[in-house]
């Protein structure tokens, strides 16, 4: 027996992009490989600049989707070019725009020349990098698009970055933050890192760094320890 059935399919209402205005130049800008300085100065390593959570550019501005760093690291000019070329090539410039959330490489990295004997002072500046902390947005994408359209492009890029990174939307980032807050609020463990470290229980601060007082054991150096509160 053949059963025929007829029905009406109700589609989801598409999102309303009526108020969306695309910028004049929707594509990613070219970023300089070397900053335009009068006199380039050698700097110390300053590993602090990739340690701990990001204080800047950790929220959305114009776009709706972004690549967020889940750990600290240095982005080279090559990475920046890779991101720029991939996104600019694959995104639809008529409906989408992309925006940098990182600065052009500004931190000098020095190297000694090949075959040089040790000593003789600090080497010459070799290249420049951009330090990125955990939680910083790298690029933002927005416009008249949904996440499904830009996600493959952004994941492809996120895989190639020198730190763990993932694609988030405004909602998923807010959900991540809300989940973290909720975890902190409803933690059933009475012993929290915060209290133990602050109270210096059993002289524990002997083995803790001052950063642990702020980060509550959620970071070790540039690495983010997920699942900790």
């Amino acid at each position: 027996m053949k059963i025929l059935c007829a029905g009406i399919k109700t589609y989801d209402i598409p999102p309303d992009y009526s108020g969306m205005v695309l910028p004049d130049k929707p594509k990613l800008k070219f970023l300089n490989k070397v900053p335009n300085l009068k006199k380039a100065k050698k700097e110390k390593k300053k590993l602090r600049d990739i340690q701990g959570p990001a204080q800047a550019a950790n929220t959305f501005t114009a776009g709706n989707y972004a690549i967020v760093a889940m750990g600290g690291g240095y982005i080279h000019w090559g990475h920046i070019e890779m991101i720029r070329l991939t996104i600019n090539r694959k995104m639809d410039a008529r409906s989408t725009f992309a925006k940098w959330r990182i600065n052009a490489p500004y931190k000098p990295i020095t190297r000694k020349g090949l075959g040089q004997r040790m000593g003789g002072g600090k080497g010459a500046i070799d290249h420049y990098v951009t330090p990125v902390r955990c939680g910083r947005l790298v690029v933002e994408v927005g416009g008249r698009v949904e996440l499904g359209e830009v996600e493959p492009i952004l994941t492809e890029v996120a895989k190639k970055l020198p730190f763990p990174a993932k694609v988030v939307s405004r909602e998923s980032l807010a959900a991540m933050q809300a989940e973290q807050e909720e975890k902190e609020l409803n933690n059933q463990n009475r012993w929290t890192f915060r209290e133990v470290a602050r109270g210096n229980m059993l002289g524990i601060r002997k083995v803790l760094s001052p950063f642990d007082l702020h980060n509550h054991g959620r970071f070790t150096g540039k690495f983010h320890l997920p699942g900790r509160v």
Partner: protein
Amino acid sequence: MAATLCGKLLTKPGWLPLTQCGRVRHMSKSVTRHRRPMHIIKQKLLAVTEYIPPRRVAAGAYPSQDKKVEESGLVLILKKEVEKVFEDCKMIAVLQNNGSNSEDMLTLRHRLHKHGLIVKFFPNEVIRTFLKDSQYCNMAPLFIGHTVLIVSKQGKVKEMLSTLRGSPQMVLLGACIDGTLLSAQGVQHYAKLPSVTTVQGELVSGLTMLTSRTASMLQHHPAHLSALLRQYVRQQEAPAAEPGAKAGEVEGAVA
């Protein structure tokens, strides 16, 4: 170098000397490729302070009901056995087994067996699944840890308590006797009560005494009865000046 650094840092007010001395850099720490080895005490701290999610189910006797596990054959058989025990037995006592060895258990079983009491072991999970749907659901909080059931078809509470006095490893948690859930204290009170037949006998004797006394009074000589009645009439006619004394007189007469 370290000493000079320490000296510099120690002079700063408000800085913890111990912490800062521990933080003096003795070697290069510029490796960022891998995680630097963590101090063992910090590792322990991280392990102690791990996030513990809140339990979904409100604190109760039952484990979480989220997962549906297929019951094995053994569990089904045990479940049937539990059902049978709860159906047949008049007394079901729940005891906590505090590490009694097999010898103790054997002697206990032997002693209990003399009175027709049987020791039963069931997994708590099985019992809980049975209790959840049954009328005995309030017994569920008793089944935590090592629990042992002592069952009997006749409620031999007194014998059970006297036997248990000899084995301190077994702690009575509660019992279900004649469909009534009793605490350990309640069981002891219950054991002190006389048996049902004695109470019934007392009641019957109390009831029969009244009738027997009436019958014996009727069997007295009619002259005695008529004298009593005459006395009663006289009391009624006389002014009620001294009712107490009269009543006492009448009662004395009746006795």
